[in-house]
């Protein structure tokens, strides 16, 4: 065994570059590249980039601007919505600052009403999401929403987006998705090659890296090197660490849950959340007309705002098996009704596989860290 861990070195490098995204966006913006902020997984990355713009995720993660947001928004709203709005309001998010346009989606009620207020600050395009992914009516509605977005982007940035450009972007994004999949698959190993925290760190880095042509080979290489170190015997996770899958609301500001799980001796092996496999785990069909393929791909994001949300349940079942998980922890952000109601179905599903399930409700504050440690600790002691 080498004295300095190879994987430690690799991760230290990722960490050192975590904030590069801000610089990339600043530079691009100064060179006149349009920046488009997105809040949700339904925003089609491929269309935005085909317009020559840079899509930056704005789904905010910090607790700080929530107080400011509460001057306009009700207190018992999900922290993600308040944080997003607060960052915009206080101009503390560099990504929002550089945005030329914001793409919003009529997902949950809180978000869509918040966007009305946000439209006072930036040009905002609202995509009307159908309430279901099933049936022709919903599909054709979403199809025309993609057309409407395309027209808006063309108009705003004086470009024409042709099918070829979209196809190229689909291919690039698919390559990134595949590379991410290979990163996640490191956790199919037993024990996993890296911890869930480390996995999260790398995927956050990828999310905020805007030169995907560079990112994809870099990520491929990183995964290769981690795998090599693992094969040579480097172990970062104990053999007996229980394997946990996290599902539910986006985790951005609630990473304390990951920490609580791993501090108690378990390891997170899979994230069925936005930013994890929920969207990026699925490729866009490259053999079909691009706009058609994009329609189906994004319509089937397994989000709880859809009724029914069949694709999430199917996916969850698969992930539970293929990552060989010992237990499922669902994270529900305070006041998120759609995910909170769906916990009932998720619980049933997980239990039907004979595994224990727990849901934790939390927000972005530090006030419940002790309680989380107890709840999660007790859950793990049950396994």
């Amino acid at each position, binding site marked *: 065994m080498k004295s300095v861990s190879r994987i430690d070195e690799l991760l230290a490098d990722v960490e050192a570059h975590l904030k590069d995204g801000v610089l990339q966006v600043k530079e691009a913006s100064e060179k006149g590249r349009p920046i488009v902020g997105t809040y949700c997984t339904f925003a089609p990355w491929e269309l935005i980039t085909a317009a020559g713009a840079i899509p930056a995720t704005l789904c905010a993660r910090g607790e700080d601007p929530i107080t400011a947001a509460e001057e306009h928004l009700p207190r018992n709203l999900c922290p993600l919505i308040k944080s997003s709005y607060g960052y915009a309001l206080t101009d503390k998010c560099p990504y929002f600052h550089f945005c030329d346009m914001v793409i919003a989606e009529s997902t949950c009620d809180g978000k869509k009403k918040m966007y009305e207020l946000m439209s006072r600050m930036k040009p905002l395009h609202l995509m009307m999401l159908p309430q279901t992914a099933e049936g022709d009516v919903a599909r054709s509605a979403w199809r025309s929403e993609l057309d409407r977005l395309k027209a808006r982007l063309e108009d705003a940035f004086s470009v024409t987006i042709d099918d070829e450009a979209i196809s190229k972007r689909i291919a690039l994004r698919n390559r990134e998705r595949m590379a991410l999949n290979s990163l996640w698959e490191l956790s199919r190993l037993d024990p996993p090659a890296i911890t869930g925290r480390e996995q999260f760190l790398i995927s956050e880095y990828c999310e905020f890296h805007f030169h995907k042509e560079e990112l994809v080979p870099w990520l491929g290489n990183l995964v290769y090197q981690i795998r090599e170190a693992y094969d040579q015997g480097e172990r970062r996770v104990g053999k007996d660490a229980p394997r946990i899958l996290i599902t539910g609301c986006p985790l951005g500001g609630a990473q304390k849950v990951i920490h609580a799980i791993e501090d108690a001796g378990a390891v997170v092996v899979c994230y069925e959340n936005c930013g994890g496999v929920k969207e990026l785990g699925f490729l866009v069909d490259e053999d079909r007309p691009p706009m058609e393929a994009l329609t189906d791909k994004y319509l089937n994001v397994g989000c709880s705002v859809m009724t029914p949300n069949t694709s999430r349940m199917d996916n969850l079942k698969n992930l539970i098996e293929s990552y060989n998980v010992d237990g499922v922890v669902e994270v529900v952000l305070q006041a998120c009704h759609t995910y909170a109601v769906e916990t009932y179905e998720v619980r049933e599903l997980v239990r039907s596989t004979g595994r*224990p399930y727990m849901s934790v*409700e939390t927000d972005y504050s530090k006030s*419940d860290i002790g*309680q989380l440690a*107890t*709840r999660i*600790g*007790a859950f793990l*002691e*049950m396994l």
Partner: protein
Amino acid sequence: MLTIGVDIGSVGTKAVLFDGDIVDRHLEPTGWNPSEAGHRAMESLLKRNSLSPGRIDRVVSTGYGRKSFVEVDKAVTEITCHARGAHFMDPEIRTVLDIGGQDSKVILLDDQGRVLDFMMNDKCAAGTGRFLQVMATLLEYPIEEFGAVDPDGEMQKISSMCTVFAESEVVSHLAKGISKNAVALGLLESVAVRASSMLGRMGVKPVVGFTGGVSRCPSLVSLLEGQLNCDVRTYGDSHYAGALGSALIASEL
């Protein structure tokens, strides 16, 4: 084998000396320094039983201060410890309702005292010992009398569960001339309703064992039985359930 279990709660620190059965127990206020309280509790047990620290084979800690108390062999969460402790006190228990000073929990057990599922209340103090204490003070009842008002007496329903709102509701009822007894009964009933809805969500399996400080309110127990339509057992040593469970776990390490 001689073990000690230490349960460092937010209000009280409990310790149990165990040799396959309870040898001795000790309770002490936690104060501002949880690890200090853990030490004091252990020392008292040792001194009272003329034991040197070397005689103790293992120590397990639990409770909110479990991690700050480092001289232990293991820290285990209070859910697991309560379950084991309750099972030791009464092996027939399948559902534990534990209402302590600041939180309440429901734990489902199997026949070995292992946790099958559990639920904890959220951050606020509604329905906990703290809530009852504030209300007893407001009504100028000693806590024992408050917990023992006649459960068949006249009752004034209280609609707020939030401690602050319930307080103003109580004041307004008293101002209208409603009797202290009726108000007290209404408050206890609201705690019973809350507890039974928590139990309902978990699915009550008999026998139900009620532990924690609040289990020492006899009228609450009978209100609960009415709500749940089944027996609710209480135990003299029930506030030591967590410490007992940790001592038990220590003996099996």
